[in-house]
């Protein structure tokens, strides 16, 4: 009936599909590079860029240092580091790419727990050596994953008792309403049970909430001795400002999230963070505890525009050295062999202290400390203590613990597996 129009439409569509083919066709270049390669997937844009960028910078710094000092096993390490843009689905795709196409020998990836969980099926399927470096809720027991950040138990375990001793035992918990926040809240409850503290209020707040006036009124109503805050992300930071506006700086806050990651004490004017006590393994203000080294200076020399050298970045940094050491010892980049060496337990000299990797659980024994911000947001460190991954090592599985040297596992334990919370 209308052959003219019909035919021209077809021409175009045909051409269009053909184009799609040819573009898709040019992507065939599979196969990794011959030399050793590491993958870095850290967010430099999107929601988590504030924390992700310094993680990326520190990882690069460590690898570049190793390369400058002659590389590993005589080879220079190549870096593949696309920007996953804080998007979990992009993470999945890029993880596949780094493993299958670039064939990375080790992978550093992801800020949030959700990202870790998003790529975990891929990591497990390919048995990829993977360092997850964010401080996190804890409990991951997985063959090829090394969660080297401090866990909630380590962080909260140092700061909560300290505050209870200093200020009293009535605690108000506010935490982000998702896995990390809820499990962190559980850990505070566990600590309260063990030490006889009172949880007088407990509140979980959606991640996109920015208005804390009702939360603040409820806290005022309960009048706790101190607050435990496991708020997360840029939206939640507003709590600290609103706390200052309402003149509540005299109620101390214990936290595992503020300051050491998003450097709120620098980005906010005093007194927003005054009287905030963070349980941390590292902060820029700690400097470098190693002899004759200056991590902070090196970092800013390499990245003059960097905002802050945060706790996670240090984890990335030392875990690169941890891996390099294991490669040297294994005398190969073969992941299975490297993991075997790592599982023997490794000592590493980190800016935050002499640390030990617990081979059985793949977690670190960290030097934990309490970082306190004063009226001028000056940071001081107290209550230094070495804390190991006791939950995974001694408590789960009815006390048998998680021992990845003995058995294969790809699981995550939560406090309620052991405690009544």
């Amino acid at each position: 009936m209308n052959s003219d129009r019909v035919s021209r439409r077809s021409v175009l569509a045909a051409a269009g599909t053909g184009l799609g083919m040819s573009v898709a066709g040019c992507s065939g270049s599979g196969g990794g590079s011959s030399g050793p390669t590491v993958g870095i997937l850290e967010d430099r844009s999107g929601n988590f860029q504030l924390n992700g960028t310094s993680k990326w910078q520190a990882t690069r710094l460590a690898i570049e240092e190793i390369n400058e000092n002659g590389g590993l096993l005589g080879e220079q390490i190549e870096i593949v580091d696309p920007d996953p843009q804080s998007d979990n689905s992009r993470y999945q795709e890029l993880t596949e790419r780094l493993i299958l196409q670039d064939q990375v020998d080790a992978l550093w990836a992801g800020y949030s727990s959700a990202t870790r969980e998003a790529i975990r099926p891929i990591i497990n399927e390919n048995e990829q050596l993977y360092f997850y470096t964010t401080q996190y809720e804890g409990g991951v027991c997985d063959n090829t994953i090394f969660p080297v950040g401090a866990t909630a138990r380590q962080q909260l375990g140092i700061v909560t008792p300290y505050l209870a001793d200093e200020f009293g035992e009535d605690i108000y918990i506010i935490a982000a309403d998702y896995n990390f926040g809820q499990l962190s809240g559980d850990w505070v409850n566990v600590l309260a049970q063990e030490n006889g503290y009172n949880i007088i209020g407990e509140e979980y707040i959606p991640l996109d909430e920015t208005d804390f006036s009702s939360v603040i009124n409820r806290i005022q109503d309960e009048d706790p001795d101190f607050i435990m805050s496991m708020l997360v992300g840029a939206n939640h930071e507003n709590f600290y400002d609103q706390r200052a506006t309402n003149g509540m700086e005299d109620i101390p806050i214990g936290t595992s999230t503020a300051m050491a990651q998003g450097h709120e004490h620098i980005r906010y004017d005093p007194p927003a963070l005054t009287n905030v006590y963070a349980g941390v393994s590292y902060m820029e203000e700690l400097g470098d505890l190693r002899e004759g080294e200056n991590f902070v200076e090196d970092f800013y020399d390499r990245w003059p525009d960097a905002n802050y050298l945060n706790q996670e970045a240090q984890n990335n940094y030392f875990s690169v050295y941890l891996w390099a050491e294991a490669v040297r010892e294994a005398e190969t980049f073969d992941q299975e062999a490297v993991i075997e060496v790592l599982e023997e337990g490794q000592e590493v000299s980190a800016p935050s202290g002499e640390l030990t990797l617990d081979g059985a659980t793949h977690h670190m024994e960290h030097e934990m400390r309490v970082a306190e911000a004063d009226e001028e947001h000056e940071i001081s460190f107290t209550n230094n203590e070495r804390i190991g991954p006791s939950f995974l090592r001694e408590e789960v599985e009815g006390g048998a613990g998680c021992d990845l040297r003995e058995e294969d596992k790809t699981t995550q334990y939560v406090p309620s597996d052991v405690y009544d919370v």
Partner: protein
Amino acid sequence: MSESVDAEASVLDRLRGRLEGPNTYGNSLPFWAVFAVVIAGLALYPQLVGVYTVIQTSRYFALAFLALSLSFIWGYAGILSFGQVAFFGVAAYTFGIIGLNFSSATEIMAALVGAILVGTVAAAIVGYFMFYGGVRDTYVTIMTLVIALVLNTFMAQTAGSEWAVGVAQLGGFNGMDIPSLTLGIGQSGFVLERAALYYALLAALVVTYLGLRVLVNSSFGLTMVAIREDEARTRTFGYDVPFVKLVVFTIGGALAAVGGVFYGSWGNYIDPTVFGIAFAALPVVWVSVGGRESLVGALGATVLIERMRTELSSGIGPIGSEWALVIVGGLLLGVILFMPAGVVPTADDLIARLRDRRTERGQSTNTPEEAIE
């Protein structure tokens, strides 16, 4: 009209008759020839490229269902849903819940059916709520977006162990494990992974695409277009407009649900960000760029844009990865400003005008075969 004696040819003609019509681009033998070549090429593709490329392309294919779904309801019936991802995500979650609780191959196949069913029913309920309640135009767009956002907020806080269906933990913000699609009977099944998943997706996409072509070129397709063009007038021809829109929206929901199941089992994972505003905007982007009234455009745009986004995340040449989002945003702006109808319809129009000019000059015999160059 030529009398066709050959029975086989007449069957083919009849088939083409159903597949072709004014509502689709690509109605000629050359199109079908190229189409066949493309399908053959895509069938060979996994043999030519690395496994990563195969996996990556599978992901684009899964997302393409979402694009087809939106192109169908928006391009043909004028219903712009900003929340197709809701049915996509609901189906993925449902597939995970059923699949984790029952793990034999038969049961996973049942999970596939169940998940698509749940996604479809969800769309039907939302559609009934909207179209029989007089919700129209932008308000449909906003309402679907808000529904996705409700799911996003709600699912993000389902981390606790109390949020479980049988053994399947919903997992909150950290998301939920999803089993791989498996074909088979009883315990023995064939797991759809990598190339197998690719072929399954390719076959499903081709069947869906052809099916949708038949549908939009049928009398139902004309009804959809009539409603898109003038809802009130169409009602006065005796059409039950809310019902037609409900049917269209439900079909769209089913397509999104199919994509959701594939997508979930592709990454063995689903999380609440599928309900978030950033993911919700993607189908709108693909479909607007490809041309909302063109199914083939929506398919092509999905694959190409997603591919470009991936490539950009590692930077292309001198362009650093930080420019990825700027380029994507700029592209979108450019297409809307300079090609409001989308790439495929605009280019089609352009070619038509070129051809017309050639015809006027009398230098062309005007056969489609020639014009394909």
